[in-house]
């Protein structure tokens, strides 16, 4: 079927709007899923941190300084071994200086804890998801924090997978709807052209297709009748003037 330039002219802007709308829908969905995933991940990391917090705060409650927590290194090593996606876990003092560290990532000092709002925090760094939990003794004084750096590979893989699947679906939706638009508009255009052609044929004296719309039939009939009448009256008037008007 040859696509007319008219159906292309009508279809193209609609295809563009459709693509934009579907693209925005995918963008919104991917964004929401990523945020939901981040929430679940953060919540999971905080469970791990909460275990460490319980463990380490037991020592702090006994009055030990943070550097004197004898079981800290073993606890950190246990957790990093348990989950290969944990890049590192550090225990820092109130100034943010690393006092215990375990894992493959280098020990990185953090900002002094006085400048950190809240008891826990999360942030995304280029190479890691970072979660922190303040440690306090039984007087409520902040004695340090435990900071976990987690591999973002799983997160990024998830987002990539969802994005590519939804992107592919969006592409298919755009292609299908575009084909639908072009085809539908083409069919409608042909139908309109067919009606116009039938009306034209009828004006030229050919019988009207009985399937033609009743209003179109009536209109064509009235046009033919009025035009014929007008021409007949004009002819008769000309003849009347030519034959008798001059005498």
């Amino acid at each position, binding site marked *: 079927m040859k696509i007319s330039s008219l159906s292309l002219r009508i279809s193209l802007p609609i295809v563009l709007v459709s693509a934009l709308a579907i693209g925005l829908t995918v963008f919104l969905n991917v964004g929401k899923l990523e945020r939901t995933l981040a929430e679940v991940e953060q919540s999971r990391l905080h469970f791990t941190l909460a275990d460490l917090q319980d463990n380490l705060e037991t020592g702090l409650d006994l009055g030990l300084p943070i550097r004197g927590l004898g079981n800290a290194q073993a606890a950190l090593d246990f957790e990093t071994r348990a989950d290969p996606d944990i890049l590192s876990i550090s225990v820092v003092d109130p100034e943010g200086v690393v006092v215990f560290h375990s894992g493959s990532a280098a020990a990185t000092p953090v900002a002094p804890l006085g400048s950190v709002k809240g008891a826990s925090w999360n942030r995304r760094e280029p190479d890691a998801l970072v979660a922190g939990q303040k440690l306090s003794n039984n007087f409520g004084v902040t004695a340090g924090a435990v900071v976990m750096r987690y591999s973002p590979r799983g997160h990024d893989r998830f987002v990539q997978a969802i994005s590519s699947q939804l992107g592919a679906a969006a592409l298919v939706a755009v292609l299908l709807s575009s084909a639908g638009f072009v085809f539908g508009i083409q069919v409608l255009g042909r139908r309109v052209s067919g009606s116009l052609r039938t009306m034209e044929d009828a004006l030229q004296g050919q019988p009207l297709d009985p399937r033609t719309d009743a209003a179109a039939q009536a209109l064509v009939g*009235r046009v033919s009748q009025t035009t014929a009448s007008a021409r007949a009256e004009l002819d008769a008037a000309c003849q009347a003037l030519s034959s008798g008007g001059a005498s």
Partner: protein
Amino acid sequence: MSAAKGMNVMSGVEGLPEPAAVQPVSVQQTAQLHARPVRRLFAFVLSVLLVSQLAVSLLAWSLAERQFVPELERKAQTVGASLANKLTRALGYGIPVEQLVGVDEFFAEVLRENADLAFLSLSDDRGQELFRSRKALPKGQEVDPSSANALEVAVDVSFEGRRVGQLHVGVDRQYVAGRITGLRYDIAIVLVTSLLIAFEILWLVVTLNLSAPIRQVVELMTRLANGDFREGAAAGPGRSLAESLNRLVDGVNQGFAELLRLAAEPARRAAASPLLEGLRQRYQFAEDGLSRPAGEQRLIGVRILTVLFMSAEMLSRSFLPIYAGSLSDHGLNLPDGLRSSLPITAFLLAIAIAMPYAGRWSDQIGRRRSYITGALFVATGLAVSGLVPEYLMLIVARAVTGLGYAMMFMSCQGLVIDHTSLRDRGKGFAMVVSAIAIAQICAPPIGGILADRIGYALVFIAGMGVALVAAAVASRLLDNHRPHAPEARPAARLRLSMLSGNHRFWTLALLSGVPAQLIYTGFLSFLVPTLLSGMGSTQSEIGRDSMVYGLIVVALVPLFAWCCERFETYALAVGLGGMLTGLGLLSLQWNPSPQAVVIGIAALALGHSMSISAQLVLVTRATREEALEVGSGPVLGVFRLMERLGAAAGPVAAGLLVASLGAPRATVWLGGFGVVASALFTLAFFLTGRLSPRSHAA
């Protein structure tokens, strides 16, 4: 008409065909011939758009459910391991597992803090359930752990190397679906907006390429059926039919030209006169023998051009005061509320000052040039707003955006005047008004959604993109030619002294027009984002709530316009509309919540729907005498200027109130001002109506 020959009673000339009396064919009767295919096309395109977007959203939801399962399982394992550790520690104190105290409360707290968990249970080593807690759900909703809704992970609880029990962690599979369902409002907004924009574009493209040419042919046939042979058809779809019709028209007109030639001969003049008179009574011919092609439909472009320029500016409406408030004012030490409101006032003030000049300038240089220049101003202003995070630059950029906005607005208004006659001008302006409403519905929520995800700066840049698209569309649709330029009127200037004694005009302007605009911009443009942001709403939610205004106005303006006309209640509508607006804002006194803000927006929309068109009718009536001298344009211009100055004052007044009282109380004060102004308006309008000799006029 009968072609039977005999004595013609109309011309009195024997031998001419007898015309039969027939009912004329009306345009309404034949309109369905061109309207039906267009309606089908619209229904088809909008259905495909709807289905494709719904399909993508449904797929996203089902994908999310599947893809999240591994992550939820990991979370359940971690939770299980963590809780099992804690239980093991308790067992270390020598308490048997079945005698542990406070396990239910402990589980309940964990469930409260983790919305994705459905239940927690602890069983002994024989599998006998000892403790169980389930997520608290709304009444009537229960999570059945055995159903597919929960994903269960079991973790052993061991003590001294021996398994003493098992902890069961149930993850709510519906959690992710529920979170995704939270997107339904955003998706619905995208859906509604894309359908409205697609509708606008479709209307433009279909009108220019399909329906206008077909309508032209059908209307030509209707005229021919009624004996009017003065016009032919232009080329387009149905060209072949148009050519056939043109041949018929030309044949008839040539016959008439021949008759005129014969009638012009002195010897035949006397006989020709009744013949021509009779024919002219029944038919209308092209007197020079040539038919004129019917005019082209260009006015439709004004809709899409209005939607585009309004959308470019309104994309940032839901967050502009928040953005302005976040910028440092470099030592000016402006109070917070004032700092947030000044950029909005700069924009509105630039519009108020520029509009009268922009209208004349557009008349002089042409619609295309003035619209494109305005679009470039708007694009520049929005680009600077987004790219230069400096407070003073933002004020300058907003003023530049306002200048461009005024140019584009006046170009669109001029376009309507150019392409309409007095008879159909109302219809033309209705196109502009509905286009503004569509932009008001679509742009703020989309801007809010985007701001939440890509940040303020990129939304300004998106607005710049829309302004540039508007310029590109204008360069394709518009020209600088003015087909129906109104004839130059004699230079009659309106002096303010002419209006000084017109108390009704000043009552309308000062107690209705100015307060209505002041409250509109002060509340909707400034206080709504400030209030909702302070109450913790996201940008998407602020945009969504602002959308309520446009939706109500679109739905109710025609209804109230009809009611006012039908029952002659213009003054009542203006007074009551203002009162309702004020009362709506007062509701924040008792309940400063997002719901109360939405009630305020709805009341503002309801009040404006009642008063917008009624106000203009009252102004026209109250200034009938002045309008006779200088025309209604300059009088309405004074009223509009005062309204725009009121609009410019709105954000700054609200900002000052916020600085001293806080946003909720500022809203209440604004509402109180609305109520007092409306009460005074009603009283004063009633009094001036009784005392003034013009009372009969309004």
